């Protein structure tokens, strides 16, 4: 029997829901709150407000095989002379005062715009990025949500700064459940196939663009995913995708031309192979076996109960 592509993709999404990891998640959230409290206590005079949630969980497009509970700590405009001082103060705080503490496992890491810390909860490691940001204008954070971040130097690139707006990123995919489902499916592909060079933010932006440019949104999960995959295949090499919070941040430039070629080729290959045999969909978009709720016998029994609760027992067709 040929695979019902829509049903399979819905099962894939269901098995990757964050609700399957609720217990672990609540422990992670407790850790996140500890970090927020620690920051609020240490920098009480410098912060503009308590740290806010960012990352995929805050955007509601997380998948349970890889997610982060990142936070962003907004600082007042006059809290530090230089952005670098702000970034170092946060790093030093976790590095010096929390080293070897049970809150922080392993060495605290200096990352490009954040401080990376690793917790161990119930034997599982979770990464948390703490992104410090500073108000652009004194007292305007609560109104505009705009922040300046310090970008640490890397290889041949010098240190710099960049503007961002976490709230704008969160709002970007708010109320866009169709787009979110496609984003989650592409993330599942990305994580399972180790496509690290394909950044999640880029996937979000190009998916939204594909939907915006489509005059007749297909129905069905496969139709929507296929539409976005075709859009990526045809446009990723030439498209310009800007961070909606900062037009100077060209997100599409985070990939080199050859990486874009590979991304386009990956989409073409997948589309061709799924077209040739629908079962190939399972190769690229697999159900998370750990949380496969597709217990057919249970589902069948439930379906039978509901089916027989109606006033009609048999379907018919006037054709």
């Amino acid at each position, binding site marked *: *029997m040929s695979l*019902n592509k*829509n*049903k399979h993709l*819905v099962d894939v999404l269901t098995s990757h829901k964050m609700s399957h990891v609720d217990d672990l998640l609540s422990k992670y959230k407790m850790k996140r709150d500890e970090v927020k409290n620690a920051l609020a206590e240490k920098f009480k005079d410098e912060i503009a407000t308590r740290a806010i949630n960012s990352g995929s969980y805050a955007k509601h497009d997380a998948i349970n095989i890889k997610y982060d509970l990142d936070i962003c700590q907004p600082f007042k405009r006059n809290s530090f002379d230089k952005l670098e001082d702000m970034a170092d103060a946060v790093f030093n705080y976790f590095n010096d005062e929390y080293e070897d503490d049970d809150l922080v496992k392993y060495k605290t890491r200096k990352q490009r715009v954040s401080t990376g810390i690793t917790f161990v909860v119930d034997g599982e490691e979770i990464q948390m990025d703490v992104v410090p940001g500073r108000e652009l204008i004194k007292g305007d954070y609560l109104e505009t949500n705009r922040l300046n971040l310090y970008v640490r130097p890397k290889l041949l690139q010098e240190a710099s700064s960049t503007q961002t707006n976490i709230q704008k990123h969160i709002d970007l995919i708010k109320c866009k459940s169709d787009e979110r489902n496609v984003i989650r499916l592409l993330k599942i592909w990305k994580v399972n196939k180790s496509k690290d060079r394909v950044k999640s933010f880029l996937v979000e932006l190009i998916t939204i663009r594909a939907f915006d440019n489509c005059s007749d949104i297909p*129905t*069905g*999960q*496969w*139709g929507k995913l296929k539409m976005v995959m075709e859009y990526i295949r045809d446009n990723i090499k030439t498209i310009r995708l800007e961070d909606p919070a900062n037009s100077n941040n060209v997100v599409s430039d985070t990939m080199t031309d050859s990486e874009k070629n590979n991304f386009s080729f990956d989409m073409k290959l997948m589309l061709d192979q799924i077209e040739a045999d629908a079962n190939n969909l399972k190769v690229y978009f697999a159900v998370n076996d750990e949380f496969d709720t597709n217990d*057919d016998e*249970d*589902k*069948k*029994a*439930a*379906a*039978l*109960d*509901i*089916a*027989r*609760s*109606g*006033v*009609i*027992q*048999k*379907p*018919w*067709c*006037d*054709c």
Partner: protein
Amino acid sequence: MYKVIKDIDQSILSYPLLKRVEEKGYVRVVGEIPLIHSEKGEFDRYEVSIRFPQSYPKCFPKVIETSEKIPRKDFRHVNPDLTLCLAVEPEEKAIANNGINFKYFLDKVLVPHLARETFREINGAYPDGEYTHGNSGIWEFYESALESTDRKLIISELEEIIYSKWQGRNELCKCGSGRKFKRCHLDKWNTIIKSGRDYIIEKLDQLKKEL
């Protein structure tokens, strides 16, 4: 139209993932219907778009399953216009002839139909079978309702149902079973007459031609 809108708004309170939308003067209901079992919880979910024909509430609303989990094939009872075929025609007439409310339609027709499709997807067959397409399915409906496969007899019984004066409830049934009419054919006839005299007359003409 106001009554229909009021009925819809009242009904979708029980289906929070559905919403009423108006496009070019036409009312539709769109959104998701989770299938929830009292013990097993949610076991499936479908996305639908529902429109209301002029003759609603004296007919079923038209439903398109937009998540396309149900393959759009005639053997899965999806019409060429993509609407779901929810019931054999005389059965639909019998249920909606006196008007139907949208909540009843959702609870007793659409949700069970979607659950039947979930079962079909897993099992490869419908739990209680299916009617053959077209007029053959209508014959099967009458065969089952009147518990007879003799089509000539079915035609004459249908004619009797609509044209004759029904015998008294406590009289012996004319079929010769030896039982009172109320214990024999009364319920069957009541089931059939619910679809309306005019409809049965129209069907009789069609079915007679097929004899």
